[in-house]
Structures are given as C-alpha cells and as structure tokens.
C-alpha cells in the first residue's frame, strides 16, 4: 500500500496535463452549487481544480506570495480594491463575457472597480439587524437598539472588526471607511459602552442561536438572515436608517493566470441566468442579475434581507480597502475586546 501511495504521490507532483483544458478556481467554502461545477465540466470539457479558502486574508497571502497558480478567485469588495492596487489581477476581456450585460446597472462600476475592468459580481448582500418579534417590543429602525439597556445580554454582535466598528461608525453618522482618529475613538468608546449588554461576539454560530431563540437581536449578514427567517418565522430582518455596509463577492482573474480563456468562459458561465439562479438557490444569498431575481419566488423578491429597496441602501457604503488605516481598526478592536 505504501508503494501505491508513493507512486500516486509522485505522479501527482509531476508535470501538467497539456492535452486537457484546465482551470483552477479559488472560492469560499460551500459557495457554489456542486452540480454547477460538474455541469460546467460536462458542457465545456474543461477540467476544474477547485480549492476553498476561509477568509479573504488567507487567500490574499497565498496569492501575494506567488505560491498559488489559481486562474479565477472570488474575493470580496475591499480585497479586490487592494489586489487591483497591488497589481495582482488581470483585466477581464468583457467581450468574452457577454453575460456581463445581464448584470444590473446599479451593480456595475462599483467603487472598488470603477471601470469594471477586473471583476464581475457574483453574490451580494447587506449587514443588518435580525430580531425576534416576540422578544423585542420597541420599533427596530436604528442601530441604537443594540445599545438599549432593556435588552441587556440579549444582543449578539459580530466578531468581525470591520463589521462591528463599521456599524458603530454609521450610528455616529460617520463613514465606515474612515481613518479619522477622533471618529475611531468615539466608535471605540461606544463599543466599550455596549459591552455589558452584549451576550457574545459570534460569527456563524449566530444562526443556530437566533433560530433557537437564545437572544432578542443580532447583527448578521443578509444571506444568513434569509436562512434564519426560514427556520424561525418569529425573526425579522431590518436595515437601520443610518445606513449599513453592503458587500459584494466578485469573480476576478489572477495575474499570470495560465488559463485566461478558460477563466473567462467560467465567469461567463457563472453569470448565465439559469446557472446564476441555481447558485442563488443553493447558497441563499442575493444575485446581481435582475433576470434571476425576477424568476424567484415573489416573497423572496420583496424580502428586505434578500433584495432591499434602493432607498434603504441610500446611505449605505461598500467597504473600502483600509490600507494604512487597517492597523487603527485592529487596535480599536483589540481594545474593545479586552475592555472590562
């Protein structure tokens, strides 16, 4: 058995298959309908090598160090801006991606890729408050409900510096991309003030906990909110009036990609309405393609968690690459987490 395994090992590390068309994709975990990948391989004959990452930062380290040779990756907005700045992306030939025309106009030329030369949106969503209608008696329309002492120890906050500091900045009326020290100090003070009321700082555990009714409210991503509301009809999602963060995960082609043509074919395939719909139904997040949205259940189309009206997004922002200010946010978050 050792010899067999050894032989396999040596074969695996050998040269590349030159006859077969290949494509290397780097995506979040559980972020594509597996059947879609199989169908892509069947339709185009391109063999897909698919890897997953847990966070944008992990992906960034692997790509920046030159250790990865992925063709397509699906990072988030602020990371795309950073990668463009650091020359880690190839321009996408949009002629090879005709399905790009199907993307809604409000999702084109986003701030992190103003000429829309490097990315094609895949999924998007918002950050908002999910609350249990039976446990919350006050109207929920502002971020300050998370600071209401009436709900002490009934509040879940996101264990994510940019999200938690970001919504606090929005509450205070500032930009969630600010680098202003005074504004960040205020946000820090506000978060420390909130600490006694917070039950826990969580990430994806929040879903099971809110479904089980362990708390009255939580800050969550819209995709998770969709899932939670389905499981527990007592839950409702709201985007506060101060505005929030709305986020995008977009497909990009990495610099030096060996299979650029196949990459563009893949991006085009993923943006095809019927394929995009299958991904939306599997993942449960929102699609930037109006044709797909119209084909969904009317209840979903009206759902604030899935497709909020433009008016709600008026004062919302996309995360910008913080670059040198990142250290400031890290410091603020560390000080919040250790505060008594």
């Amino acid at each position, binding site marked *: 058995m*050792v010899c067999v395994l050894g032989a396999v090992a040596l074969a695996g590390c050998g040269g590349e298959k030159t006859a077969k068309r290949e494509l290397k994709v780097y995506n979040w975990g*559980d972020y594509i309908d597996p059947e879609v990948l199989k169908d892509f391989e069947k339709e185009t004959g391109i063999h897909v090598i698919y890897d997953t990452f847990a966070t944008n930062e992990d992906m960034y380290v692997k790509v920046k160090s030159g250790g990865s040779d992925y063709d397509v990756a699906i990072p988030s907005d602020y990371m795309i801006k950073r990668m463009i700045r650091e020359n880690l992306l190839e321009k996408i030939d949009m002629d090879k991606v005709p399905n790009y025309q199907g993307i809604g106009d409000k999702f084109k030329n986003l701030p992190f890729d103003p000429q829309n030369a490097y990315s094609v949106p895949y999924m998007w969503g918002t950050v908002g408050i999910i609350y249990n209608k039976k446990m919350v008696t006050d109207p929920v329309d502002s971020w300050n409900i998370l600071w209401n002492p009436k709900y002490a120890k009934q509040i879940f906050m996101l264990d994510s510096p940019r999200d938690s500091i970001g919504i606090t900045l929005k509450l205070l009326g500032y930009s969630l991309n600010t680098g202003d020290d005074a504004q960040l100090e205020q946000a820090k003070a506000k978060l420390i003030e909130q600490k006694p009321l917070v039950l826990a700082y969580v990430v994806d555990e929040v879903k099971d906990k809110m479904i089980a009714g362990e708390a009255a409210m939580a800050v969550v991503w819209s995709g998770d909110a969709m899932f939670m509301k389905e499981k527990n009809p007592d839950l409702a999602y709201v985007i506060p009036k101060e505005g929030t963060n709305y986020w995008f995960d977009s497909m990009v082609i990495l610099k030096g990609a060996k299979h650029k043509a196949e990459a563009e074919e893949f991006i085009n395939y993923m943006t095809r309405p019927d394929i995009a719909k299958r991904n939306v139904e599997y993942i449960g997040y929102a699609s930037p393609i109006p044709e797909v949205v119209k084909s969904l259940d009317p209840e979903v189309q009206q759902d604030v968690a899935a497709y909020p009206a433009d008016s709600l997004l008026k004062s919302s922002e996309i995360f910008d690459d913080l670059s040198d200010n990142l250290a400031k946010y890290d410091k603020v978050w560390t000080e919040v987490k250790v505060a008594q």
Partner: protein
Amino acid sequence: MEFLKRSYAAVIFAFLYIPIFVLIVFSFNASKSRASWDGFTLRWYADLFDNSAILNALYYTLSIAVLAALLATIIGTLAAFAMYKDMRPWEKKIVMNLTYLPVLNPDIVTGISLMLLFIFMKINLGFLSLLLAHIIFNVPYVILTVLPKLRQFDNNLYEAALDLGASPAYAFRRIVFPEILPGIVTGALFAFTLSIDDFVISFFTTGSGINNLSILIYSMARRGIHPTINALSTLLFLAVLILLLAVNRRVVRDKK
C-alpha cells in the same frame, strides 16, 4: 470514595463524548440548523457519497497522514537513536533545541515560512509540498516520544550483544528495536493524529486541488458547517471505534 472516583471519570468522559454524540444525532437531522429538528433522514449520508470534493479531501487526508506518519517515524526514530548513541552532550543539546523549535512555534509561522521556502525552491505547491510539510512538523514529535524510551533502555543489553558478536545493525534490529517499539508506535500514532488534524500548515503548503478535510471544513466557517460533514465525522468515529474494539479484543483474547 469509589463512587466519587467513578462519577468523576464519568463526568470527564461525558465532557469528551457529548459533543460527538450531538454531532452524530444531528447527522440524521433533515434540517441544516442545530436549533430545529426537521425529521430523521439519511440524506446527508447519501449526499456525502455523491460529493467528490469531500471524498477527495478524505482520500488526501488519510494518504498524507499515513505517509507522513510512516516517514516521520522512520526519520525520527533514526534521529533519536543517533542522538542517544553517537552524539556528545553538546551536540545533543543543540539538536534537542532544534527539535523543540517547531514544537513551540505557532502553526501559522511554520506554515507561512514553509510556503515561502517551497516557493523559493521552486517546488510547486501540491501533494509533494504538503507531504514534506507534514513530515517536517511530525519528526520532532516522534523524536520526543522515542527518546525517553531509549533513555529507559538498558544500554548494557546493547553492549552485551556487541560483545557476543552481533553487528551494530543486527543488535539494533533484534535487541534495541523491540524494546523501544512501544515508543515508536506512540510516536507514529501521534504523528498520524497531528497530520489528520492540521489546518494552518496544510492550508499554506498545498495547492492544485489537493485539500485535506481540515481545510475543507475551515473554509465553511463563513457559511456554517454543512451537515454532510456531520455524516462524515460520524462514519470516521465509527470506523475508529470498530478498529479499537477489534484490536483490544485481540489483546484481551491473547491475555487469556
């Protein structure tokens, strides 16, 4: 008193096993959420066998673990023996400190530095780099498990064998090796467990579609762990349980 001892042990075991038990129960839950029970189903098990990504990851996890444990044990045992036999005290000290370094280093430091090393040496990140990385972080643990067993070993036996005409290799094979075998087996199992478990080092030293289960599962952090992982964990747990029962039954039978 006996009751206290028994109940304390029971509490410890409960603490260890209740999470696994919950995992197994929820692998049959038709709902993806832990908070609601939507009915009994074997769907996740069926999905598991259809899911090539998970099966691939399982294959690589096991093959890397077996190969890395085997090779690390061989290298580690030979190293331990050399340290015990042939090194002067100051040489031994240096090597011991070098051995301790990877153990004390945080995984992420080891992972990123190995990744940079492989890139520098123009080794493609894939199965080979992953295997090398695993062997590298396993060897110190093997050395640290075999060395104490060697110290316990009565050197006079080895000297006596040499005196009686055995070559050093023969003496090692027939006298020393059987005595330190428990330490070697422990080292091998230790290495195997570390390899199966590892995420950070594996993540940074692999590529080209070679994933292990830890990478696959950690990547699901943002979206929540898919219940097919529960099904897989249940099956792995049962496999190990059956294996242990089979091995121990043989030992019990031998004792009789």
